[in-house]
């Protein structure tokens, strides 16, 4: 997936930089893991830590480097049996939406994944549903469908192996593959 760097409007560059600052990689994942462990008990999704999100880290020197860069955080996670976008991931999706809108020749593959539980072919469907939820979000943000393709891997490409909720939570994801 090639992108052609070209001059950005200042407003777009600033919002990209701010969003880049919001998307710290490791922190977000850990935060979301704690949030999902309550899923089975029905505690809802609001408990994800705001580590990377609202910490007010703002813009760090290294992240400011390339304003035309593809957003660093490329994976978003889902709750058990769900394909709804969790609020803590919306800023990441917005960053990708901004990027795609400002690079209309860029294409992205949304890879949908499921945890290992249940049957393989059904899990292909679950992974696809999650990727479709992300695509729909991007469409609402103004991204053209022609830039987005969906591939579901179901449970076939786990990020982590293990028969526990912590592992499952890391496998229920959609990955932006540019």
């Amino acid at each position, binding site marked *: 997936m090639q992108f052609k760097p070209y001059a950005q409007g200042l407003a777009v560059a600033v919002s990209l930089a701010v969003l880049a600052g919001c998307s710290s990689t490791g922190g977000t994942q850990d935060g979301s893991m704690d949030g999902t462990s309550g899923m089975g008990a029905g505690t809802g999704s609001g408990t994800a830590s705001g580590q990377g999100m609202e910490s007010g880290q703002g813009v760090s020197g290294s992240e400011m480097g390339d304003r035309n860069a593809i957003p660093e955080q490329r994976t978003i996670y889902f709750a058990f049996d769900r394909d709804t976008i969790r609020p803590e991931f919306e800023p990441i999706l917005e960053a990708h939406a901004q990027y795609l809108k400002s690079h209309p020749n860029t294409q992205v593959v949304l890879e949908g994944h499921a945890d290992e539980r*249940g*049957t393989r072919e059904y899990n292909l469907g679950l992974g696809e549903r999650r990727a479709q939820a992300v695509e729909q979000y991007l469409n609402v943000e103004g991204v053209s469908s022609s830039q987005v393709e969906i*591939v579901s891997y179901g449970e076939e*490409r786990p990020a982590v192996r293990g028969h526990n909720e912590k592992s499952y939570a890391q496998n229920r994801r959609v990955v932006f593959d540019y």
Partner: protein
Amino acid sequence: MKRLNLWAAALLLMLCTSIAHAELTIEITQGSDQAIPIAIVPMEGGDALPEKVSRIIANDLERSGRFDPLPRESLISQPSSSDDVYYQDWQQLGSDYLVVGKVEQQNDQYRIQYELLNVNGEDRMLGEIVTSSPGQLREGAHYISNQIFEAITGIRGAFSTSIAYVRANGVGDNIKYTLNVADADGHNNQVILSSDEPILSPAWSPDGQKLAYVSFETGRSAIYVQNIATGQRVRLTSFEGINGAPAWSPDGRKLAMSLSKDGQPEIYVMDVASRDIKRLTHSEAIDTEPEWAPNGRSLIFTSDRSGNPQIYRYNLSSDQSQRITFTGSYNSRGRFSPDGDTIFMVTRDDQGFHIARQNLETDRMTILTDSNWDESPSVAPNGTMVIFATQEGTRGVLGLVSADGSASFRLPSPDGDVRSPAWSPFLD
């Protein structure tokens, strides 16, 4: 020339690896207490053979869950023909049946003479001579197992069948996938496809010559059909979205499949010759995992249209679907018994995912396994056993359970994760 040698060496290494590629061994996890005691006496002259015929027969019968071969050490005597049998010895041992025989080499062939004797009735049930080349000895032994099995149980033996399955080696982004075919006892493993991308859902054509499967080698799922003997293959679908769960019609002319090209996975039927497709389901749900009834008049499939996956039956004359599973909150991946009266499936309870059986007339469901990560059941063509995928730790292995749940086995693989087994039709 140097490059050619390197290529040749690499190819040879690949071939050697695929032949030596871990054979599946069999472990008993639970024996049936109704297993029939049978004494299989080592064949006279059998030690000279490259394959131990009596041992293959004993393993076959044991693996069926219905027989309990006497341990070799307990055999009081080793007769090689019914003339030398003293029935009282075997009655004392508690054996119901006795198999004796001898092997002779004749030119470049082996001549195997065997007899099946009824110990309590003190008479001969079966006697036959089987001729085999050295390379066909296992085949010859499986043939004898089939004859013995059918003579005693009345059911056709399935020992000359094969299993297709997928093996995954490696972790993360470096997983290598292979599609394999092996004898039902795990021997003679053959790699028929190698890929860096996932392979799933192998399905045998009714004539036993082809496998349909899903491969991600083009970067997304697509359905292929491959001739096992020749390796020749064709890509049947490459629609946008999911191309999954191929299932052959009983006459081998059609493939049911799950395609999400119209928005979400739906069941379609493709005519293999013309590639015409007909859409069967129209729900907003995930509809997948189709399977034809043996009489070809209906299909079962998985749908989550009620909120959770359940199994539905689609009647091909009325074009209507009807839900058929009502026990538990997750039932999927249904497979018919050969007589069409029973389906085997994956069901979920508080402990996890198990293989279960449901009688279609009474709707009564019985859970067959107590392991918790079971999936992909596939039924032997004589309906007696179900092979499935399960986990040992985080390792994927295959399991076998008898259709009545009384006996179960593991097939540990020393190499990689094994999953998605598919039992061949009768091949003999």
